[in-house]
């Protein structure tokens, strides 16, 4: 009886191996910023192409860069573009290059949980830098109150929440702070993983959202869709033209307008603190990191096919998830660049 059960189990397993292997499995990992978008995309693409399974794990942009360099995943994803050192490291390790492909654009918003304040707050660059440097410690500090006349801010301690993992969202946020605050630039700098002066660490955009949602008097930075879908308030930020702008698709597109025309060949560009009256100052592209060389022809074709789809049909899903579509000029340029994938 026991022998029969054992044999049955073995047969089941072997059957499992044989049956399941017919799907082409592609693995990617990286940014949590576009995860709601990507999980929808890969799900839809799988429905249209049942034999292609693209498994994406949102472990943070730092993880995406690391794992695609190690070669343990087929592609990566990041909202903080790889710097020259990292690109060289990839080149040295694999003998071929790595390509950045922008997929959508999004906004990083300052989200908060202040008891008694349901309105949208206005944040100046000085206030944000001060809060995250640990110099502005109370909600009713003049730097915050000054921009929010008529709002009753409590005298409570601010609980800062940042990312505990290596994050492109952090990259965008610190990139912005480095541009608007010399002190931040010198003390902390910009990157996916910095030495935060103050605050709690949450894992992924998901973790930060969860922490802010559950912690009174907290403030964190997350991608727009995370604040919206969890119904937590997020504030407006003063842009370089002096206007307080609340993150929206139009405002993000306005921020990207200048960059779209001057997009470099490798698509690595920063659009934080962009000029323009209606631009949202903390916007960013998000990129897929795709190796320039694939030894496996099936995978290469599958990925190329997916990128083409993402740049066309895929863009239609973006706005309902609060991501901004790519500017047309960028899409045209990318479609040409797909041929670089060998």
């Amino acid at each position, binding site marked *: 009886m026991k022998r029969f059960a054992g044999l049955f*189990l073995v047969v089941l*397993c072997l059957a*499992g*191996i044989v049956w*399941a*292997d*017919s*799907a082409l*499995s592609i*693995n990617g*990992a990286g940014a949590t910023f576009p*995860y*709601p978008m990507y*999980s*929808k995309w*890969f*799900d839809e693409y*799988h429905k249209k192409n049942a034999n292609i*399974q693209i*498994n*994406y*794990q949102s472990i943070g942009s730092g993880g995406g860069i690391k794992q695609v360099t*190690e*070669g*343990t*995943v087929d592609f990566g994803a990041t909202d903080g573009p790889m710097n020259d050192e990292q690109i060289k490291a990839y080149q040295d390790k694999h003998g071929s290059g790595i390509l950045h492909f922008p997929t959508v654009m999004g906004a990083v918003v300052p989200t908060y949980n202040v008891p008694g304040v349901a309105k949208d707050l206005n944040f100046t660059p000085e206030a944000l830098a001060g809060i995250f440097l640990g110099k502005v410690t109370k909600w009713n500090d003049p730097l915050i109150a000054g921009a929010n006349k008529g709002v009753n801010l409590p005298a409570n301690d601010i609980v800062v929440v940042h990312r505990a993992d290596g994050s492109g969202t952090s990259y965008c946020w610190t990139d912005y702070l480095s541009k608007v605050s010399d002190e931040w630039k010198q003390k902390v700098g910009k990157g996916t993983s910095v030495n935060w002066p103050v605050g709690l660490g*949450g*894992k*992924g955009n*998901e*973790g930060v*959202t*969860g922490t802010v*949602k559950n912690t009174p008097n907290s403030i964190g930075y997350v991608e727009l*869709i*995370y604040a919206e*879908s*969890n119904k937590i308030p997020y504030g407006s930020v003063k842009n370089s033209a002096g206007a307080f702008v609340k993150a929206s698709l139009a405002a993000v597109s306005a921020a990207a307008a200048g960059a779209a025309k001057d997009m470099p060949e490798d698509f690595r560009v920063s659009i934080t603190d962009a000029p323009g009256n209606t631009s949202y100052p903390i916007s960013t592209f998000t990129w897929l990191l795709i190796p320039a060389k694939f030894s496996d022809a099936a995978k290469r074709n599958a990925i190329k096919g997916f990128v083409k789809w993402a740049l066309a049909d895929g863009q239609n899903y973006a706005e309902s*998830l609060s991501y901004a579509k790519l500017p047309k000029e960028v899409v045209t340029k990318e479609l040409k660049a797909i041929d670089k994938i060998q």
Partner: protein
Amino acid sequence: MSSRLRWRKFVSGFMLTMTGVCAVVAVAVLFFILGYLVYHGGASISWNFFTKLPAPVGETGGGMANAIVGSAKLLLLATLIGVPIGFFGAIYLAEFSGGTIAFVVRYAADLLNGVPSIVIGIFAYSLVVLPFKHFSTLAGGFALGLMMIPITLRSTEEFLRAVPGALREGAMALGASKWKTISTVIVPAAYRGILTAVLLAFARVAGETAPLLFTAFGNRFWSPGWNQPTASLPVMIFTYAIAPYDDWHRQAWAAGLVLLGLILVINIVARAILSRGIAVPRS
């Protein structure tokens, strides 16, 4: 009765009652955990949970079917790796070896047992994931199997040693060779204890999360074969619990209930087997 004696008696009664309170508190925690999981998890368990794949972020209606199957595959692999090494190694220790080698092997097993599970994850990453250039069920199963080895080894050795010498000697007197004695007399005599050891080791690794974080990684779809990343119940619980979506929280509770239920059932069964089995003197 002098007042000093009265005081001493009072202290005695009081302290002994306090110890009773401690014991009750400790046990109450267990029941609280169980109760809470049953309450929250039970409310979230649904047919969807067992049969559906995870839905895209933010959408409801997804399930953990792939995580359940993934965990099963990982545990199967872990057992295939951990049990033979532990079992045969224990036979060597109990039946064949001399003092020094036995000491070294036991020391190594205890060392392995004490390694924090996250460090086992690091080891499996550098040994299996990097060379193969893949996160995989294989790597995850390897990591879990490593953790099963010391438990299986030490317990099996104890139970083998506890088999009465008379059985051994009887078999040898009848002319059986050593390995025949082992396979037909000693192992069957100790089989209940060995089974218990295997079940307990299995239950121990069933709940392990840390070693899987960078070996089995994770998968939103079914994981084909053994060389692809796979979802697993413990990792899903972790991922869903720290996320902000209420639907994911509900699924985390359900998964927690399933996982804990499985582990507790295995533990209870294992102990039941043992208590009804051989009369092994408690060491």
